[in-house]
């Protein structure tokens, strides 16, 4: 695919450097990401990130599908947090077509998205530990809890990965009766489970040695590179859209925005751990306040939003996830653009890994928590 990239780096360099091609088929790249690194000994002196191996032209496809048919496409972007994608898309369509939704749907959305954030962060810290050398033990612990959340989703919408649950006008169906008790049980178990991850990682000497003061991202640089989400907060910028522009009903819940001090890999890990605890709190409050009523507004079969454009964004587990939709008055979006946080966060990868050792580059990439479905779209 990228014949030119290789040709920009002569393989037999005279100054004693070595070119290493890392990926796309490598487990540490979390998918099909490729990194061509130029090494001097073990030190990275130049790097070229290469992506696009999973490109499915989602933006072009949604131009020839109705607004409702666009929802399954959003599931396949960040497949570790498909609920968040559904929500961002639904909010954009609702802004475009000026749809009011029932209050119960707002609460159900928050519950699902926050549960999904916990599941996504489980995956993030599990695979980060994996990249740091803790071979699959923390990963399986994290998966144990992610599994329970997926069971709840399966019970609600019949799917474990591609939910298409949150739709414009509300959610696809109400939650089943057993959902609330099972969810409460999960929330009661979750803090102890997070303690368990922390016992394995937070003060583990090997983990600290691998992550502390590695891949430092200063706050000014983070903002300059449009980095968002846990990465930006780990650098010390308290930017969380749930607080800055409370979409849905986030202004009714009490939660803290954890921030880091140094902006290294460890801070990114620890911000995620704390965010999981905050998400547990949010879901608990949402369950307590959950109102009755419909879970879906009645809408016309074929939605034809008025001419215009709308940009809606949410705080996804990976960063700010935005949808920019343009309507020409017809049943299909004229243009649909995804502001994919993984993709834009990756802009900062090259300057962040220069000067580090190869093994550190893998941990730094792990702390980005990229999902290639979203990077390549």
């Amino acid at each position, binding site marked *: 695919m990228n014949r030119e990239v290789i040709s920009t780096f002569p393989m037999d360099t005279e100054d004693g450097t070595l070119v290493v091609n890392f990926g796309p088929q490598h487990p540490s790249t979390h998918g099909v990401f490729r990194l061509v690194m130029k090494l001097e000994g073990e030190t990275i002196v130049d790097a070229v990130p290469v992506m696009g191996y999973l490109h499915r032209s989602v933006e072009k496809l949604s131009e020839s599908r109705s607004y409702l048919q666009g929802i399954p496409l959003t599931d396949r972007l960040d497949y570790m947090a498909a609920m968040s994608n559904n929500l961002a898309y639904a909010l954009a369509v609702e802004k475009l077509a000026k749809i009011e939704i029932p209050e119960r749907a707002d609460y159900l959305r928050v519950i699902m998205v926050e549960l999904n954030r916990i599941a996504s962060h489980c995956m993030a810290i599990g695979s980060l530990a994996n990249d740091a050398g803790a071979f699959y033990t923390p990963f399986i612990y994290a998966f144990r809890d992610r599994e329970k959340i997926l069971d709840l989703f399966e019970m609600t919408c019949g799917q474990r990965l591609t939910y298409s649950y949150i739709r414009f006008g509300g959610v696809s169906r109400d939650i089943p009766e057993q959902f609330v008790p099972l969810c409460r049980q999960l929330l009661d178990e979750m803090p102890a489970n997070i303690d368990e991850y922390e016992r394995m990682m937070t003060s583990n000497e090997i983990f600290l040695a691998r992550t502390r003061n590695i891949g430092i991202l200063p706050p000014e640089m983070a*903002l300059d590179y449009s*980095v968002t989400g846990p990465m930006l907060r780990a650098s010390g910028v*308290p930017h969380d859209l749930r607080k800055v522009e409370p979409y849905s009903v986030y202004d009714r819940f009490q939660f803290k925005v954890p921030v880091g001090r140094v902006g290294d890999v460890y801070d990114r890990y620890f911000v995620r751990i704390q965010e999981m605890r905050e998400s547990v709190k949010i879901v608990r409050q949402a369950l307590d306040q959950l109102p009755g009523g419909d879970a879906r507004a009645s809408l016309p079969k074929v939605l034809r939003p008025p001419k215009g454009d709308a940009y809606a964004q949410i705080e996804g587990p990976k960063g700010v996830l935005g949808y920019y939709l343009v309507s020409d008055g017809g049943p299909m979006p004229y243009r649909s653009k995804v502001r994919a946080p993984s993709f834009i966060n990756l802009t*900062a990868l090259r300057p962040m890994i220069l000067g580090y050792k190869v093994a550190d580059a893998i941990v730094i990439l792990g702390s980005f928590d990229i999902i290639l479905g979203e990077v390549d779209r």
Partner: protein
Amino acid sequence: MEGQPVLPGILVEARRTLEAAGPGLEFRELVDQLDVSLPVDRLIPCCYLIKRELGYPLLMSVTAVDWEDSFELVYHIYRTDSAFPIVLRCRLPREENPEAPSLVSLWAGAEYQEREIYDLMGIVFTGHPDLRRILLADDFPGHPLRKDFQQDPDFVLVPHLRVPGYAGARPGKASTGRFLDE
């Protein structure tokens, strides 16, 4: 009974600063964002003002729309403490390679987003440090997000895997994908 939409104070101030910078800017009144249409040669000076003087550090999204008679570049610029963005819109002529100035010198975060627009929409960003295709193959013909894009039936991604009879796309609509020949 709807009154005039009221802009939040922070955007009123932004509007005043941008208006003072010179003519050529068109403002659209919206409640929750400042919508500015501007000629493409004013883009860099305005972005400089927005970032340095008004203190908008986050270039959230860069995108382009193909309006068939012209291209439109859309920039969403945010503050970290306010929900109200400045939205910049630039019209570009509809030609083979329209040019726009790159914002990488102001926001490094524009690098991949501009590469993506170049890749999928064919807009050339002058001054970009590394303007190459990012998602598609380097030798891919055309820019697929353009409305008049036609898939090249002869293009095969991996030439040595080409199978006789698997000729590529059917002629006709752009979004049909690849099918086996009938």
